[in-house]
């Protein structure tokens, strides 16, 4: 639990470490996509283009399992953006964690509960908006709140809040716990040079590998659950 520099913008306080790593994540995703699509070709694709195509194919499999709609391209694009963003956001905190004079200035953006809650809230509100857009207001109320019997209304309302909270806190908890342990192993390894370096460095490498695995699993789960929640709002049972 470190202190961080806080800047106040219009009465809202923003932590500098999250701001820096968020901007870096967005820039990384943008640079990756620009580089992969620089000179695309059908019969002689470069490696970056192949990687981007693989990601798109993976997202298409994810989304197709949840949403059977004619306008599935919109969900494909959303899923791919979300997957790239969450995956790279989980990765940036693994390479290094910077602390200057007791103030932290770099950590994973998804290790901040505010960022995770914002992501989850955006996805849930988007699913409501898409439901109203596709089905009309009356049908939307009927098919997502009055199902299967109309006195299930309080349970369905509570389910909305639970979905948002667990979607956000699952991502936050996994990444935050990983980072705390990274810091703990680093302080163990640095406490008595050179003896603890022998234990500390391999242990840190093992934990970074495991955190890489967990970060990718959590990105996959976030996108899959978002698509499942959207399909609940958009599709009705006839």
């Amino acid at each position, binding site marked *: 639990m470190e202190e961080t520099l806080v800047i106040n913008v219009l009465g809202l306080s923003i932590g500098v470490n999250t701001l820096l790593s968020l901007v870096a994540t967005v820039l990384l995703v943008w640079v990756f996509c620009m580089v992969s699509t620089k000179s695309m070709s059908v019969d002689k694709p470069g490696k970056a283009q192949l990687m981007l195509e693989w990601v798109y194919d993976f997202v298409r499999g994810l989304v197709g399992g949840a949403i059977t709609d004619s306008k599935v391209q919109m969900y494909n694009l959303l899923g791919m953006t979300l997957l790239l963003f969450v995956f790279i956001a989980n990765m940036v905190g693994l390479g290094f964690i910077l602390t200057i004079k007791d103030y932290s200035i770099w950590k994973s953006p998804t290790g901040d509960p505010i960022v995770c809650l914002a992501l989850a809230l955006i996805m849930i509100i988007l699913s409501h908006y898409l439901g109203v857009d596709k089905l009309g207001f009356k049908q939307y109320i009927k098919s997502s709140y009055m199902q299967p019997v109309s006195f299930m209304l309080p349970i369905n309302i509570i389910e909305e809040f639970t979905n948002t909270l*667990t979607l956000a806190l*699952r991502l936050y*908890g*996994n990444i935050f716990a990983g980072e*705390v342990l990274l810091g703990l192993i680093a302080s163990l390894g640095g406490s008595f040079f050179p003896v603890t370096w022998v234990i500390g460095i391999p242990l840190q490498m093992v934990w970074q590998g495991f955190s890489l695995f967990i970060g990718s699993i959590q990105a996959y789960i976030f996108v899959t659950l978002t698509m499942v929640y959207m399909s609940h709002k958009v599709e009705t049972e006839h």
Partner: protein
Amino acid sequence: MDALAAAIAVSIAALGASIGNGMVISKTIESIARQPELEGKLRMTMFLGVGLIEAVPIMAVVIAFILVFR
């Protein structure tokens, strides 16, 4: 007392997560043995299940961290 509370929280969280994960993964291994051609799909579903199960014990771990480090 905070350290004791954190220790109890983390130990029960670890117990819950491991028992839950063990059930899911053992069922997946059994299913792969029954139908080896579905291995890819079963593996992806297993990872989805493991991530969902580990969500709540991880929240308990975060609460334990808050207790210890503040």
